[in-house]
């Protein structure tokens, strides 16, 4: 436990210098997306023949979807380049592992820190949703928790993968073929049931579709009966990722 705290202290020291910038970014991004897509595009939809998406205004539909998609993206960035840098380019972990800190501390520390970063991003996003009048019940704040767990469901397995890499070339592949398609097609911008059947099935294999469904249910007040299963899927991905990351990091760092 002490080792974990000491590990986090290192992150905290660096974060003290960068938190303003990263908060600004996590504030501006939802502002732009919800403004342009939610209200801009949303006004077209509201004037259309149906006027709503799945029974709510487009911006109310989009907000929780983007909240989940945002933590997915944050987790992807946090679990790739900075981790490989500390393994290989800067060899920060080698330095740490010459002290009482352990590889277990490194893995749990990185994931704990990732959860903190995800929380900051999710809370900021949620505040923007409140400002836009999209939140009507205190229960909706649970969507923040969903977004954090969703981030870990992506971040932990990606961290495990990063520990097996020697160059960063695979990271852009993950970005292009997993993260960006999921961001666009994974249920944030339009309902998954509008996708062709094959893509629908694929989408439900990823954590994002479950996180979007959960978050949307919480903020629009229509929690589905399958919510427990959605949460279990997210926790399952995170747990498997944690175990895998422990194995691959141990293999990588104890040569």
């Amino acid at each position, binding site marked *: 436990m002490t080792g974990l705290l000491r590990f986090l202290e*290192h992150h905290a020291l660096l974060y003290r210098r960068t938190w303003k910038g990263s908060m600004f970014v996590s504030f501006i991004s939802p502002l732009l997306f919800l403004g342009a897509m939610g209200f801009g595009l949303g006004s077209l939809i509201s004037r259309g023949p149906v006027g709503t998406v799945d029974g709510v205004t487009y911006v109310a539909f989009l907000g929780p979807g983007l909240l989940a998609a945002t933590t997915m993206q944050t987790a992807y960035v946090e679990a790739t380049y900075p981790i490989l840098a500390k393994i290989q380019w800067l*060899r920060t972990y*080698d330095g*740490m592992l*010459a002290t*009482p*800190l352990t590889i277990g501390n490194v893995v749990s520390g990185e994931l704990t820190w990732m959860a903190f970063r995800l929380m900051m991003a999710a809370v900021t996003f949620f505040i923007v949703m409140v400002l836009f009048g999209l939140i009507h019940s205190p229960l909706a704040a649970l969507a923040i928790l969903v977004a954090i767990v969703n981030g870990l469901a992506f971040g932990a397995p990606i961290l495990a993968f990063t520990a097996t890499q020697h160059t960063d070339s695979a990271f852009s592949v993950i970005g292009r073929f997993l993260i960006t398609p999921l961001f666009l097609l994974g249920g944030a911008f339009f309902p998954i049931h509008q996708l062709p059947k094959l893509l629908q099935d694929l989408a439900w294999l990823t954590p994002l579709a479950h996180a979007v469904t959960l978050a949307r249910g919480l903020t629009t007040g229509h929690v589905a009966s399958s919510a427990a299963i959605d949460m279990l899927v997210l926790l399952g991905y995170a747990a498997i990722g944690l175990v895998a990351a422990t194995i691959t990091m141990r293999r990588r760092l104890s*040569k």
Partner: protein
Amino acid sequence: MVRSSTDAAALVHARGLTKHFGALVAVNGIDFDVARGEAFGFLGPNGAGKTSTMRMINCVSAPSAGELSVLGLNPVTDGPRIRARLGVVPQADTLDTELRVDENLYTYARYFDMPRALARQRTRELLEFVQLTDRAHDEVEPLSGGMKRRLTIARALVNEPELLLLDEPTTGLDPQARHLVWDRLYRLKQQGVTIVLTTHYMDEAEQLCDRLVIMDKARIVAEGSPRRLIDEYSTREVLELRFAIDARPGLDGKLAGVADRVELLPDRVLLYTHDGEAAAAALHGRGVRPESTLIRRSTLEDVFLRLTGRSLIE
């Protein structure tokens, strides 16, 4: 060396220590003991197994076979407890380039769970010790190679280690920077810190080590103090001759019997003898006319050449 009585008190004790990486045997059944207060060296060319041995001692890499104890503990099961009492200077600097010079020491002290006030005090003392006080608030990246090395050494001393492990502490440094590092290490040795270092510089081993082992191809090929190794495996003096390229053929016959042993290297001829002057005179008498002649004392390089038939730095 008196074995049985000192072994129990050895800070590092290895018997049949072996490390495989797949099919590659990096360390092949080596035995050694490091006593408290001594400066112990692993000398050998790149790829001899020095770094793999160091990584087993600092509990990063688990031995594939054999016995190893560090500070009387098992590196596989007691890693954190051992590392709490070790100082490690790795081959490549692992300084945190996102942190300032003083922050590098402070955060490192915190990894050892040192209270904040004490961590700040140690930071000040160590910056003083490695003569970096005036760079305390600078970024790490613009520092020279020698300064970074000194900072890495300071960082390894933050927990007042009983055992300091240095993997090629001065490789790549200019002569002035090397001497500054040696001076600091010498002071630590005088303070009673046990030092284990690897090097492929024989002058470094001669300067710093009370005792050393010579490694080649994953094995230990000789062990002793620098002086004893030289006495045992080399002669008192060495006569170095350089010839014009076309003068080399047909020399062999003329060199016979002048020295105890002759080494023909690509760029020069080494004659091992107790009296360099006499050997040079004898050759002159036989009509041998080298381009240049140098008489010097034997070094560990000569020992290595004798034991392996190869030059240490290839």
